[in-house]
């Protein structure tokens, strides 16, 4: 028996995502992923001051805020030959790390957990037993019976009010939920704790960038200044504040998030064999320690893995026109050379061609075009991007911190390394990454303090701030890693304004439709073989999709509604 199920909207994500899946005999046989919203930010950027682009592109996504601003600043700096001062690199790294830690924790508890955690079941938990389990997991000081009893009582009253709010119509009681009531109570309790904590760690963005979401960036460095003789600059009090927030972040990640992740995962080990999907992984890497132009100095390394072969990491070059190409055979665009062509972003050609049904509609025609996302490929291969890709590349390259933690997680769950290639592996990799990054954040902070101590205060390179110093034409690429995966901006500057601007973002890699040769991208590939016990309650599909942490506003903006060809960009 075959069923076509539609999940639209996919909730607990950023943006507007639609999944259509064909389920046969309780298993997904085929799947189609569609982005259903566009804004056209690339077109809006044309003709503007390149130094303003970070602010426009930062608004591509408010969940992974800051990462587009960073990619944008780097693309302009690459085009103009600007190197940022060491303190600016450290501040950017600190903001990057704070973003990862906040975003990954919020993803686990507020976007992903309810796929594994039954909120209603926790009402049956014994608070004393819950406390005993929690204390066996970690030394987190709030794990006492009184705390759990209070949380349970609060949720009980909430449920009894009959107004279930954000928990209404969940698939509660579904047989795919396997946690005992006590573990559900721990998770729900920490759902609330994480909600309260996450607002604090982002104060690091407010201290260096003035606000969060959407802190301020600056081409050539960072906007804040250091001065230990001044209350109106980043001084000892501000640095102490950052230091305290980092300390709290490490504690939360190590005592709450990672122990919860492992506890939940231990009940779902069957998901280490589900949702693997593609066998190729791509990471641009980030967290430079000797400048953006030296990828060998990155704490998160750059590279590609093919066929799950961890013995070989391939070099990746964003400027090589034979590496990254975008296809549109199933996307609402058309190419001059025909819809089967693949084009490098430098030669990107974007002509709007909506052929989908006029809303309201029941189904998309998946044999034809069915998404606003283009389909990127690396050397013609579909690639998975994200925390799993980053951790695999770091693992394969022998990063000692990553190797140690990945090993510890595998031992704890008693699963082989191949378990990483799965829905569970993706979710676990995010936890490993969070822990590694939280500690690196402390290292960057110590380096920054040491610089200030030594009187090294500079945060901005003024060399090419003035457009009068720019060449008539310039072009550059800014590579980074959003929490959700590899992110790149390409810019072409002409007559001191933006001539062309292109973005290829993580969810374009993962959530895109098939390419011209019919190869599936990450979401569609990972769903094949996923069990679905009840087609009216497809919680299993949500587990795999959420394991990627979808972010659709990023992915869909690549079009030109006037049908004009986006300028071609040539790199040397």
């Amino acid at each position: 028996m075959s069923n076509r199920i539609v999940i639209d909207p996919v909730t607990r994500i950023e943006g507007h995502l639609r999944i259509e899946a064909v389920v046969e005999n309780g298993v997904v046989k085929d799947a189609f992923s569609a982005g259903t919203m566009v804004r056209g930010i690339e077109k809006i950027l044309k003709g503007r001051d390149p130094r303003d682009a970070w602010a426009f592109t930062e608004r591509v996504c408010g969940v992974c805020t800051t990462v587009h601003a960073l990619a944008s600043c780097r693309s302009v700096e690459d085009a103009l030959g600007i190197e940022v001062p060491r303190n600016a690199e450290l501040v950017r790294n600190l903001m990057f790390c704070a973003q990862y830690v906040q975003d990954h924790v919020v993803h686990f508890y507020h976007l992903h957990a309810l796929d594994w955690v039954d909120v209603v079941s926790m009402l049956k938990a014994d608070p004393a037993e819950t406390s005993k389990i929690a204390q066996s997991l970690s030394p987190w000081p709030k794990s006492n019976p009184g705390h759990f009893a209070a949380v349970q009582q609060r949720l009980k009253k909430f449920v009894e009010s009959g107004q279930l709010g954000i928990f209404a119509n969940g698939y509660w009681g579904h047989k795919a939920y396997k946690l005992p009531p006590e573990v559900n109570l721990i998770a729900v309790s920490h759902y609330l704790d994480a909600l309260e904590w996450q607002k604090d760690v982002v104060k690091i963005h407010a201290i260096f960038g003035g606000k969060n979401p959407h802190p301020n960036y600056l081409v050539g460095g960072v906007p804040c200044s250091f001065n230990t003789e001044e209350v109106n600059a980043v001084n000892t009090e501000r640095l102490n504040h950052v230091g305290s927030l980092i300390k709290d972040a490490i504690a939360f990640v190590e005592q709450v998030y990672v122990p919860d992740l492992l506890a939940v995962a231990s009940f779902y080990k069957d998901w280490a064999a589900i949702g693997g999907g593609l066998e190729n992984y791509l990471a641009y890497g980030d967290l430079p320690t000797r400048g953006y132009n030296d990828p060998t100095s990155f704490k998160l390394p750059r590279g590609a893995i093919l066929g799950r072969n961890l013995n070989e990491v391939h070099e990746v070059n964003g400027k090589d026109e034979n590496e990254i190409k975008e296809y549109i055979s199933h996307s609402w665009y058309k190419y001059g050379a025909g819809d089967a062509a693949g084009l490098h972003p430098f030669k990107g050609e974007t002509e709007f061609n909506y052929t989908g049904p006029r809303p309201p509609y029941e189904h998309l025609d998946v044999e034809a075009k069915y998404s606003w996302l283009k389909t990127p490929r690396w050397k013609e291969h579909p690639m998975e991007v994200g925390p799993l890709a980053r951790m695999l590349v770091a693992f394969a390259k022998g990063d000692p911190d990553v190797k140690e933690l990945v090993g510890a997680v595998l031992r704890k769950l008693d699963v082989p390394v191949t378990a990483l290639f799965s829905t569970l592996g993706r979710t676990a990799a995010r936890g490993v990454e969070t822990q590694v990054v939280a500690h690196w954040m402390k290292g960057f902070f110590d380096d920054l303090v040491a610089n200030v101590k030594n009187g090294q205060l500079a945060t901005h390179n003024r060399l090419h701030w003035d457009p009068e110093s720019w060449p008539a034409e310039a072009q550059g690429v800014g590579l980074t890693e959003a929490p959700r995966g590899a992110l790149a901006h390409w810019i072409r500057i002409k007559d001191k304004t933006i001539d062309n601007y292109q973005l290829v973002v993580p969810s374009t890699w993962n959530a895109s439709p098939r390419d011209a040769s019919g190869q599936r991208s990450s979401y569609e590939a990972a769903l094949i073989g996923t069990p679905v016990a009840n087609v009216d309650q497809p919680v299993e599909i949500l587990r795999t999709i959420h394991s990627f942490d979808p972010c659709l506003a990023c992915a869909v903006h690549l079009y030109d509604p006037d049908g004009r060809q986006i300028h071609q960009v040539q790199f040397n």
Partner: protein
Amino acid sequence: MPVSQESLWETMKGKGYSRRDFMQFCSFAAAAAGLGTQATAAVAATFEKKARPPVVWLHFQECTCCSESFIRASHPIVADILLDAISLDYTQTLQAAAGAAAEKCLQDTLKAYAGQYILLVEGSVPTGADGAYCCIAGRSAEMILKEAAAGAAAVIAWGNCASYGCVQAARPNPTDATPIHKLIGKPVIKVPGCPPIADVMAGVVTHVLMFGRGPELDAQGRPKEFYSRRVHDTCYRRASYDAGLFVDAWDDDGARKGYCLFRMGCRGPVTYNACSVTKWNQGTSYPIQSGHGCLGCSENGFWDNGPFYRHLPAVQGFSIESSADTIGAALGVGVAAGIAAHAITTNIRKRPLIAETIQESSASGQTEDEEAKP
């Protein structure tokens, strides 16, 4: 443990409101929902028995920064809002249900609480291509907005997208991104900013619960308690401006002393927001305090009032006292008019520069529509 299972009537009673006040509020809510006085009794019945007002949060063309900001609220924290203050029945960012189960949450609330739910909208609505630029569950954003707005007791536009169209409405506005007040025939409380400050969002949502009525609004529909002061007038660096102490280059001596960022393009003089008083992230900082000028993100058309690093004409002649009363009314109309108002009071020597900026601003800025006129 701050558990509140009181109905709105009980809450109001507890705060000293009379039955008459409560009925007045109910008639306000009924009128706001376009239901007329005959519906007042039904509205009152709901608020008497229902613990938390039902709330629907719609997402259209947005980046979710407003939702992210909302969960940064520190007083009250967002868990208290969600568990004790409101019943957030539909929000694609946080709700457990997905697909058909999520859409059922929306339809259930629209039907069961017609005329009684609060509608929060994040994002602009693209009217181009028959709505194909933004679809949810196969329906266009415009269809969903109009359906949900019809029975809403109050409509709140979160952020610059829903209020003014924001970045996707910047030139050339490829998708015809439209602010929601242009599509629905009822008053909209605008809470602009990209995003709005978390505690401002929490303040707007809880205002009704705390005082039993909606917040006082200015001519543009913004709550006066958060948007009646210019960032410049309340900025702690204002003294540097008045003394002529400026940052002239990034990380220069003036920057390290925290001088005024006016010459680096700061839009504080033409921006109405609570940043320099309420500040961001539990009072931690705000853009100017951290060394970058204000982008003007709570103003209509701020994306086209650039480039961001070109500075505004000087704003001498404004004093803190006069700004809100006399200039404020004019500035409330929009950035273009605001700069015109500056011109009137500005030093004659600066006239050529001002004229140039007015021209640029008029050419680029989106003009505010009729209801914005004071």
